[in-house]
């Protein structure tokens, strides 16, 4: 049987990591033309996966103009809820089908200033409301690892773009799992930064108190390279923190020796089948000099409820702006999922119901913060499964009003508290070619710790499909 879990091929530059492609360009082993030709070919060959909603036509010219910058003019795929000047931005909703923004989101500007080229816009669950990319108004995206399965979501187009080697790296956004969960299902790396680390300016707002843009990449190192370009204070997003951006690439090789790591949700029965598959993976951290202990944390089922209420409430407010007057079309064009969320959020924040639902949810959010404060007093990092199991088959969301919330259950506690998290592939099923992911959570602003652990793990194991055998 052909070994299908190696993406990296020395003759196909679209399968190279960002770090490798930068190096090869610097050494003149490859040209930008060769890279873009290979990427374009991969995009054409994977049309059936429905990854891209729009493509820029002047990428190579832009690439040459940016060749000397940190990202070397390399092609980056961007989730279609980030505004891109003169390139349609739909949030995968019919409401914005024709919308051409007259401005760039801050993340996109920073990417371009750092030498990235926006190759195209990737599919998502409409308005990022979902965890499957199946609720897009423009059709579902298929999982490149196994096309009978969903890629996860909502950044499923971006994780599929990386998994299919149709870009060198990508951008996603996470409100509660939307970077890490599709990264797990597609077998790629997803880095959700601390809330307030990356600007939300120009991103179609979903739940403003948890929305966090971040990189989706082939390796932890690549994710760090992109993070360093897009993070930082933005005067146009008052919730971004005025803190220096850490040079994560300089921290990568510091290892995990002496770190104390808590193993989250080891006691949840419904996860036992997946836990059995990754038991050996936790021992990897111990072999690298860390101490791993099972810990007791506040039940994530409560976070599902907090997130459901907070997200719907904020959505009902944020989607209020779509009146079809200044841009977009009228509100009858909202899909079923958006209608459900806007209306339920209107209910949970309405007079007579807000105390019972919205206020209670925000109080339980405090309990989660307190719980994490206590855990981080004892542990440097927390790890656990990213998703309860493997990718679900296409069609799995039909009739499931709470599909996303339950698939994202293990991520929601860290999302509602603003903590940074990192998905790294940690198991591959040889029969389906589908992956499980490990979620590494760090305290606020400590992305450095989580990428050290992620990189050390990636180097010590064989799950990463871009690994170059020495």
């Amino acid at each position, binding site marked *: 049987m052909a070994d299908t879990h190696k993406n990296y091929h020395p003759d196909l530059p679209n399968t190279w990591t960002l770090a490798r492609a930068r190096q090869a360009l610097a050494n003149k082993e490859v040209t930008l033309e060769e890279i873009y030709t290979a990427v374009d070919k991969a995009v054409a060959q994977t049309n059936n996966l429905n990854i891209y909603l729009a493509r820029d036509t002047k990428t190579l010219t832009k690439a040459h103009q940016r060749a000397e910058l940190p990202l070397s003019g390399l092609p980056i795929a961007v989730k279609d809820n980030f505004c891109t000047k003169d390139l349609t931005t739909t949030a995968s909703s019919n409401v914005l089908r024709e919308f051409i923004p007259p401005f760039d989101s801050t993340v996109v500007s920073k990417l371009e200033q750092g030498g990235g080229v926006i190759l195209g816009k990737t599919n998502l669950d409409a308005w990022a409301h979902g965890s499957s990319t199946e609720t897009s108004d423009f059709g579902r995206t298929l999982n490149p690892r196994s096309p009978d399965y969903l890629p996860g979501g909502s950044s499923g187009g971006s994780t599929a773009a990386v998994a299919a080697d149709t870009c060198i790296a990508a951008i996603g956004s996470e409100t509660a799992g939307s970077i890490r969960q599709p990264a797990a299902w597609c077998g790629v790396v997803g880095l959700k930064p601390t809330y307030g680390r990356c600007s939300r300016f120009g991103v179609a707002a979903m739940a403003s108190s948890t929305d966090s843009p971040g990189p989706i990449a082939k390796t932890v190192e690549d994710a760090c390279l992109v993070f360093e370009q897009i993070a930082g204070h933005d005067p146009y997003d008052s919730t971004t923190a005025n803190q220096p951006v850490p040079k994560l690439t300089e921290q990568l090789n510091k290892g995990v020796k002496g770190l104390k790591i808590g193993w989250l949700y080891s006691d949840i029965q419904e996860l036992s089948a997946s836990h059995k598959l990754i038991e050996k993976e936790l021992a990897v951290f111990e072999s690298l000099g860390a101490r791993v202990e099972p810990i007791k944390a506040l039940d994530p089922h409560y976070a599902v409820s907090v997130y459901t209420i907070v997200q719907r409430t904020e959505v009902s407010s944020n989607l209020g702006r779509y009146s079809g007057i*200044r841009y977009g079309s009228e509100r009858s064009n909202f899909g079923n999922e958006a209608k459900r969320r806007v209306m339920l959020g209107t209910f949970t924040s309405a007079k007579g119901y807000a105390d019972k639902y919205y206020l209670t949810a925000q109080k339980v959010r405090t309990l989660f*913060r307190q719980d994490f404060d206590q855990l981080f007093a004892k542990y440097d990092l927390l790890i656990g499964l990213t998703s309860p199991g493997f990718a679900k088959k296409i069609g799995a969301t039909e009739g499931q009003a709470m599909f996303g919330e339950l698939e994202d259950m293990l991520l929601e506690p860290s999302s509602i508290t*603003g903590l940074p998290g990192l998905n790294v592939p940690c198991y591959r099923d040889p029969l389906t070619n589908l992956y499980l992911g490990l979620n590494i959570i760090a305290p606020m602003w400590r992305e450095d710790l989580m990428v050290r652990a992620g990189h050390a793990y990636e180097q010590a194991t064989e799950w990463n499909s871009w690994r170059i055998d020495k």
Partner: protein
Amino acid sequence: MSQFDSALVQHIANLANIPLKPGEDKKLAEEFESTLKVIANLKKLDTSQVKPTYQVGELENVWRDDVVEKKRMFTQEEALANATNTHKGFFAVPQIIDKG
């Protein structure tokens, strides 16, 4: 006991300015009911002494200078480019006040 009936769903739809198709209210009522069942677990926690967390960033009173940044301004043409209805350089809006 069911909390949602067609009248409540229609009331919420009006508040949210979401036009419903015929029969949609019944389906939505069922879906809302099932979601409320999932989130009912919050009742099990004692939150009587807990303060709410509305935001996690811990920033307060973030100000900026009240100045016009010309480089960020749209031209009239850019501002109107995505509108479906314009009138002499303005956005045309639907009538919301009765002619009487």
